[in-house]
């Protein structure tokens, strides 16, 4: 707001000097825009600087490597493979992510402080479902903690987590049987959270989320194809062959194979769609929408490879869980 006056003054001086007001207006207007554009920039810069500072002082959180993050070298390779397979299978069926972290030392922090920092950095679990669990073991301090994502607090209560530590993990750890403790602990965690989420549950919501823009664009594209196809079938075919895969590419991120398939499909649609509409009205709903449906299922199939959302998808933690020692 104070800038307003500054620029107006600037205005006047130019007026007096040259009397060429009109050329001065766009010039000062450019300065306006320049500063307006700069404001949020400077604010963002300031913010990122703050972020950087606060990060520099924070304890270093080791990077997330996968289901097993064995920074304290406590898990033998055979157990590691076994647990990884178990946890991957569990995520595939239930979409719940369980991750193990072992660290040599807490470096003066309490295990609760450390584990919430890890949870905030790793964001285990799916966004919106917050179904992540982190099992943290600090070797030197002999501390265990199960950090539970918000979405699982109902099933895996603090009480339950506490009992798993006290009755399942702790006795085995006390005997020095880390592998046995981890395997039994993970089995107990899986038992406790089984059925809370199903991988299929998020399919419909994901479908709606990612397909509604796709259908909108598809409808617009179909209208465009109709117009072009009415002018000339070749034009319609070319537009379809390019338009359909390009649309799919931006919305669905399909594989190359799918793209080629869509290209051919677009070509056919671009040529025949106008005929369908001009020739027979009954082809309308019957022909067009099932096609769209089949893209949908193909897109979903692709998602299976990255287990439907990737690792550490944005799960939120609120400090739920329990701690113990051995």
């Amino acid at each position: 707001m104070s800038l307003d006056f500054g620029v107006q003054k600037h205005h006047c001086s130019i007026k007096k000097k040259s009397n060429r007001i009109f050329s001065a207006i766009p010039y000062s207007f450019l300065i306006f825009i320049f500063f307006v554009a700069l404001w949020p920039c400077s604010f963002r810069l300031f913010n990122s600087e703050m972020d950087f500072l606060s990060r520099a002082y924070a304890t270093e959180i080791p990077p997330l490597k996968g289901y097993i993050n064995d920074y304290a070298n406590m898990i033998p390779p055979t157990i590691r493979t076994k647990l990884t397979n178990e946890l991957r299978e569990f995520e595939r069926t239930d979409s719940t992510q369980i991750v193990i972290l072992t660290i040599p030392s807490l470096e003066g922090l309490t295990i609760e402080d450390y584990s919430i920092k890890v949870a905030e950095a790793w964001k285990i679990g799916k966004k919106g479902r917050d179904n992540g669990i982190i099992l943290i073991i600090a070797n030197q301090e002999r501390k265990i903690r199960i950090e539970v994502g918000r979405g699982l607090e109902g099933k895996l209560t603090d009480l339950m987590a506490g009992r798993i530590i006290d009755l399942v993990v702790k006795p085995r750890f006390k005997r020095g049987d880390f592998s046995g403790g981890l395997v039994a602990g993970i089995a107990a965690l899986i038992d406790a959270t089984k059925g809370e989420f199903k991988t299929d549950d998020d399919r419909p919501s994901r479908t709606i989320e990612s397909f509604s823009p796709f259908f909108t664009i598809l409808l617009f594209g179909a209208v465009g194809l109709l117009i072009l196809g009415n002018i000339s079938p070749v034009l319609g075919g070319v537009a379809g062959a390019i338009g359909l895969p390009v649309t799919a590419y931006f919305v669905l991120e399909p594989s190359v194979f799918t793209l080629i398939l869509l290209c051919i499909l677009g070509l056919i649609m671009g040529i025949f769609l106008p005929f369908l509409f001009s020739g027979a009205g009954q082809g309308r709903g019957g022909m067009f929408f099932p096609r769209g449906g089949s893209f949908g299922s193909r897109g979903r199939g692709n998602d299976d490879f990255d287990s439907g959302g990737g690792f550490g998808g944005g799960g939120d933690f609120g400090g739920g869980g329990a701690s113990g020692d051995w």
Partner: protein
Amino acid sequence: MKRFLVYALGIFAIMSLSGCGYNTMQINEEAVKAAWGDVEATYQRRNDLIPNLVEVVKSYAKHEKETLQAVTEARGKVGSIQAGADIVNDPKAFSQFQEAQASIGNALSRLLVVVEQYPDLKANQNFRDLQVQLEGTENRINVARTRYNKAVQEFNTSIRIFPNSVTNSILLHLKPKEAFKAEAGAEKAPKVKF
């Protein structure tokens, strides 16, 4: 040309609204409110645990009437403070709230110290369950408070820096919000008597 100027000013006005942090401040205020909701919920969770805890302890430690009474009283006092989203704008109410919650915390930790003298009680599964729940709740309170303070810090910064400060003084009139301070006496290590 005059029309051009009007348009330019119109565009400028719209752009400056986002440029001068009008939206940022609103977003940050909402974030503070949400974080405060979490703080209240976690404290309420602790309050709900207290009657059960008192019941269990009572049946084993009949001689600790005073300690138990202190817990119940502290809990009652919190109930009389009406908390709400407005409390974050009111320094006096806020410090009252913080004090009341701190007195519950103190009473509870005294109770847990006393309990150490009753091995039967400590072995009671019911009591151990409650203890785990209490620990979990205290941890949640900690997390919620830290996040609330972070949100407040961000909000307070966003209304103070230029050009947001100008926008705020002209349009929004938002006041800085209260953050949790370290509890009085927390910096001193507790004395252990034998």
